[in-house]
């Protein structure tokens, strides 16, 4: 199977996964609640539909009525829930058309698009940087097998992965933002009270942006490097005693060269698979980070929307986060296939 063909096959699988998630979401948030309060999803019963009940409140106000009617057309609210509204929801999700927010009455997709860079700035960093940190620490630990450094790194990675991201951010806010401010009047990091706005004008805003983001970066790195150190160390430990490393050492390569040029190419595919499978958890953690620090990404936007029962934004939030996770999965799938051609032919399969 060529790489292109494999890519297409995987893309189809990922799209199927995506659609499955959307259907599951629709059932969980629309069909089951409507059945739970005695509705029949196959006949149109607007009074029992939670989305319609959220919409109907502003309908009394004549100023809102045209906007509400456009929302009813977008979501097909006058039709039965199950075949019609589900299909409309799938079509809307795939075309990223979520209608208008109930709160701001602006297009949800444009608001999401405006906030997406903020989420990506946090999320991509939280995924990528801890991997590199963990990688180098694991190599250092493997070179120092059985010595104090190895023990220290193992213990620190243990403490790192037993403390969740959102606990780390609290500790950092306390130790590096609040305490120095109160004790010595030094503001090392900002407390999450004045979050940057979504419009950036000039270098000043970008500097504040980075300053505000740095505790979040530190928290995500501190919390996630442990998993990777432990995992890389495990993979290296099983790989470093293979025969080919002895050959490499016999050829006169240094320990660092053995690891970098002989061992690392072999451990890349399982590592990438592991990355793909840790992505949903990291995404959950970055959601908590956004909410705690009032970082204006999509999760914080959705947080406000959920508190105000803003249905279109909730839908959009779920769809976009599923999409982010699916795209990450797809990228790592293709990367594994590039690195290890056996995967394309179904000979090798990495389960971790």
């Amino acid at each position: 199977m060529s790489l292109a063909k494999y890519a297409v096959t995987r893309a189809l699988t990922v799209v199927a996964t995506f659609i499955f998630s959307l259907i599951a979401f629709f059932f969980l948030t629309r069909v089951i609640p409507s059945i739970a309060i005695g509705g029949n999803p196959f006949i149109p019963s607007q009074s029992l539909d939670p989305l319609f009940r959220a919409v109907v409140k502003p309908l009394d106000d004549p100023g809102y009525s045209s906007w509400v009617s456009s929302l009813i057309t977008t979501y097909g609210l006058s039709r039965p829930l199950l075949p019609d509204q589900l299909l409309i929801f799938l079509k809307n999700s795939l075309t990223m058309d979520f209608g208008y927010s109930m709160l701001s009455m602006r297009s949800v997709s444009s608001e999401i698009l405006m906030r997406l860079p903020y989420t990506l700035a946090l999320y991509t960093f939280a995924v990528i940087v801890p991997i590199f940190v963990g990688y180098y620490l694991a190599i250092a630990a493997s070179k120092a097998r059985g010595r104090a450094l190895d023990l220290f790194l193992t213990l620190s990675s243990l403490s790192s992965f037993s403390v969740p991201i959102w606990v780390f951010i609290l500790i950092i806010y306390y130790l590096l933002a609040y305490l120095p401010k109160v004790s010595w009047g030094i503001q090392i990091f900002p407390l999450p009270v004045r979050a940057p706005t979504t419009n950036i004008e000039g270098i000043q805003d970008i500097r504040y942006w980075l300053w505000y983001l740095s505790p979040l970066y530190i928290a995500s790195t501190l919390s996630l490097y442990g998993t990777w150190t432990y995992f890389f160390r495990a993979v290296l430990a099983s790989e470093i005693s293979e025969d080919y490393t002895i050959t490499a050492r016999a050829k006169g390569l240094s320990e660092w060269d053995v690891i970098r040029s002989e061992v690392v190419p072999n451990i890349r595919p399982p590592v990438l698979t592991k990355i793909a499978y840790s992505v949903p958890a990291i995404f959950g953690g970055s959601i908590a980070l956004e909410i705690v620090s009032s970082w204006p990404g999509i999760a914080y936007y959705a947080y406000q929307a959920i508190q105000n029962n803003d249905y279109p934004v909730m839908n959009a939030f779920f769809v976009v986060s599923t999409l982010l996770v699916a795209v990450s999965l797809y990228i790592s799938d293709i990367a594994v296939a590039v690195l290890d051609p056996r995967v394309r032919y179904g000979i090798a399969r990495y389960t971790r």
Partner: protein
Amino acid sequence: MSHDRHRERQGVRSLKLYIGLSTILFYALLGTYSMFAGYTGSLQASWEADALAMPFWTAYMLDPLTPPTIEKRFSEWRVVGGNASYSIDAWNTSYVILRKPGSLVIVSDALEYKYRPARSMIIYYNIKVSTKDSVRYSITVSIVNDDVSGKRILYRGSQSYIEIGRYSILRVEETVYGGSRIYEASIRLPYAYLNRIQEEYLPVEVNPVSDILLSQESRIRWNINISYSCVSSGCGDLEILLGSFSIKILGLAYGIMGTDHRGSDIWRQFIEGARVANLFGLSAAAITVAIAISIGSIAGFRAGRLSDQLLTFLTDSVFFLPAVPLIMISTAVFGRSMPVLYGIIILVSWPGLARLTRSWAMAIRSEPYVEASVALGANRLWILRRHIIPRLAPLAGYGMVSLVPGVISTEILIQFIGFGDPNIPSWGRMLNEAFNEGALINGAWWWLFAPIAGITSYMAGFALVGMYIEERVNPRLAIAR
């Protein structure tokens, strides 16, 4: 590898197991204890200490002058002034009779106060006034501190003088035609309504407890000022019964873990959080393991068939369902309740273990004895039950250990960002309150510390046991070699 080193490695490994298991056991016992200790309502004010009271042991170490909770009942009274003729019972000094019209000042015994000023107190008074005739009387009940009486400069934005050492609780002026009246109240100071009454005396808004009454090395007492006059000619006695008077100074040092913004005990919340974590974490993980083992073993046993492909697709799809957004939105639809939260957590957390189970089951399926059973014509379900699932028991144990932290951390995350059950005290809820109700701004580190310590050590316990199991399975991971 020498024998000694081998033993040393075993030692490090078992140390992990012991520490991990004892941590888990500790929290299990703590949770069980909270069930039998009768701790309910840990989310309401305990009235045992002030809001944001620090733990007593840190107060003892850092600042011995931090006030603890002090409670005193006042029963000894003496007359210190006034011009009325009176008689007072020698044995029960709380019974005073005024014989002739005039005024009288009665004070109680003193409460000795040795600490920095506290912020609030709960006071209770009960006076019964009875007479047979028509009289007009006025009573003023106040708390006085003779040691700090006078005027003091107080800075509240602008500097101003306040009169300190006296705070009036009750001022009545009444005309009665026989009979008795009872004046009683239980008031928590500072009290907005009373402060308004005192406005004529207080040029700026002050805290009556810390600004007016309490000072280090001083004594406070009750002061009752009575005066009466006759409405018609020829009136007789006015009997005063000073019932129960008490002052409870709410301390700023309390308990093992201090108090939160409501003044409720953090230790109680902590052990109730341990109970919730244990109860829901273990049960949800057990259900998840059961689901994962059954789906994974069926998929592994039928590997390559249509049923396996469908189950694998289901597993992968559910794995990539973003759990946190799903739970956040579901709370908006179903309401914020624990069963919904756990239902969805179970729904989304089984696929990881199911994938692992599938690969194990595939390996077991190709072993000779299973193939022999297949060749002998055994029922598929029988093979699954007799040959495959018993071999997966260690995996179930490992799954339990690795799933509990995941389940707990998701639950705490949801509680922390404010989508959890509002009626259940969990560590996530404690963190949420600490963060949102100003633990940082007030420097209440103990309030943040308690849930963080709980979460971290609980997770580390499970992580240690998980590491032990992984090193048992793959000995090359062990530290010493």
